[in-house]
């Protein structure tokens, strides 16, 4: 089992998201995250899909996506240099003064922005890789048991231009 990334160019039409997500659920393919948005060409949408699978299933997934009429192009990002970011909001409630200090410290180390706070609640915004976001969530879950709320957006990815960054 390995983490995979796919970039999908699809027709910007009603029902295409249902078609792609339905393909994953219908064939019991695992899906970690899926994001979609319109591209510079308004008739084309671009999806970033992350999933975990073995080689054989992954080959099949790519083929199944390719044969969908609505799919224009499938690009496998698994072993390419890409820039990848995921938006993550974390709301921490019932914070003591000491918690606040700790949160401000964590935000420095993780490069997280505190975008709002009031009374005993703090709102953090984090735009990092999925893995980095996972680390932050794990840390905050440990430190602030039952007092965090998480919203994450799923990753978007684009090929690197000049450097080999992953």
């Amino acid at each position, binding site marked *: 089992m390995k983490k995979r990334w796919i970039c999908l160019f699809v027709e910007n039409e*009603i029902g295409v998201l249902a078609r792609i997500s339905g393909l994953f659920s219908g064939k019991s393919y695992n899906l970690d995250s899926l994001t979609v948005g319109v591209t510079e060409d308004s008739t084309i949408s671009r999806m970033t899909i992350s999933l975990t699978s073995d080689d054989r299933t992954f080959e*099949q997934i790519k083929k199944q996506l*390719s044969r969908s*009429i*609505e799919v224009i192009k499938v690009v496998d990002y698994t072993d390419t240099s890409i820039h990848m970011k995921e938006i993550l909001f974390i709301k921490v409630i019932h914070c003591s003064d000491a918690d606040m200090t700790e949160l401000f410290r964590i935000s420095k180390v993780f490069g997280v922005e505190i975008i709002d706070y009031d009374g005993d609640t703090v709102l953090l915004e984090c735009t990092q890789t999925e893995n980095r976001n996972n680390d932050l969530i794990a840390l905050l879950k440990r430190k602030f048991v039952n007092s965090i709320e998480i919203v994450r957006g799923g990753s978007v990815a684009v090929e690197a231009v000049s450097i080999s960054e992953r």
Partner: protein
Amino acid sequence: MKQITGADLFMKALKEEAVDTLFAYPGGQAIDLFNALYGEKEIDVILPRHEQGLIHAADGYARSTGKVGVCLVTSGPGATNLVTGIATANYDSVPLVCFTGQVPTHLIGNDTFQEVDFVGITRSICKYAVMVRKREDLAETIKKAFYIAKTGKPGVVVVDLPKDVQRAYGSDLYPKEIMVRGYKPKLSVHMGQLNKALEVLNHAVKPVFLIGGGVNIAHANKEMTQLAELTGVPVITTIMGKGAIPTTNSLYVGNIGIHGSYAANSAISNCDVLFSIGTRFNDRITGKTEEFAVNAKIIHIDVDAASISRNIDVDIPIVADAKKAICALLEKAKPLHISEWTDEINHWKKEYPIDMGKVGLTPQMIIQSINEMFKDAIVATDVGQNQLWATQFLEIGENDQMLTSGGLGTMGYGFPAAIGAKLGNPHKDVIVISGDGGMQMNIQEMATAVVYELPVIICVLNNGYLGNVRQWQEMFYERRYSSTCMRYRRSCETGCNQPDHCCPEYIPDFIALAESYGAKGIRVTKAEDIKNALTSAKQNTKIPTVVEFIIDREANVMPIVPPGNPLNDMILEREENRE
């Protein structure tokens, strides 16, 4: 530019696409389209008695003619009744375009009368499903639908037509060509891969061809026969591939699979090169996959890249249309010297034939009589034991055809498919081989066959059981005949597994039923009456004939590969018959 309604454009599109037969059932949200069809002379509009019968008929028409089958039904229940037929056709790569009426666009989502999200329902069981939301998209969408249905790996396209789009005025132009940027059917053959495949084939000691439905769909039967004869390589087929070369050809070994012949399954298990064309290595043909053709280098030609290396790992994959690939092979292939291997296969064929014996009214005798009495015929099977016996015993010559629901295994398919086949091939004999269970699933189409004067011959093999499930219950579930007896009544003991002469009378009386529709009915209870019955059925040239054969209640399909076994580990005959 002339302005016409959506319904009139629909008519124009059908004519531009050379549609000569339309399978159609009206309803509130399709009434404008039917209005446009009123008095139509160029298109034969067929009104079946149920939408499921309708789509199977369109399917039989498409399979037997090679043309696109076209359906038109209303929204809601009209559309949902198509679902089984869509999955059936798509699974077997049959080109259909299904037009469904839909409530007006401004009412969609309101739980309007007879509204269902039909595109949503069918998305995962068809090749492409689309709703036309704007009148200006109508022409292009219909063009696209036909193009997608018939090219590449053919399949079903659903076009949902809201009523306001049918009524709205717009351009009368219908495009001559269409480009779909996400859809590029493979038109060429990769010669490098093909040469590699030939190299492997030429060095083979024990090669076989394994041919699936792709060769029949590509109408490459003649070329396939030439290729087999040129190379001398034995040919094994899947159920869908049966007829790829004439079954009487000496190079034909038989069907592979859980009810395949011992010779075919053994040849697959022992071959050193498996050259497969147009099959997806479905679980019904591979048996235990870990032991499938373990010694073989596997070459796989398929038009669908997703079919390659999905169930079975392939050494040389080639994505191509079967006909194009076979034609390219024909130019370069040469004879192989493999007489030891062919002798071995012939020995298996001789030692372990599929044979039900010559006593009594057996399915084998019935089907062999069909073989003798009908040449250049189309045989549509239903699903279950009747289908499996047909695939075992039916002879398919150069101009014969077998229509069968191989992928989905849809009971109730055979009879309506035969109606469609007869409509498309009025000069050919069309025969149905069905069981008594499946026959009752679309029996209402007897009316269609009568009113359109379609003299199909319907052979009902009646054992009073849902026989294939009963056979599994007998062999693998300790004879627990749960819900498989068709003679069951409230008065019966629960848990009965002993068919005997005290069983309640069978209903319906197929003969009386046929006659109530104005068709003919003949019941056959003795082997010596088979030919007389078929002869008199042949003489009914205006109406269908039901020939009901009362067969042994517990006749089994043999041989069989028990679930989980490798292919060549078969049970060859029933325990009590073994010596």
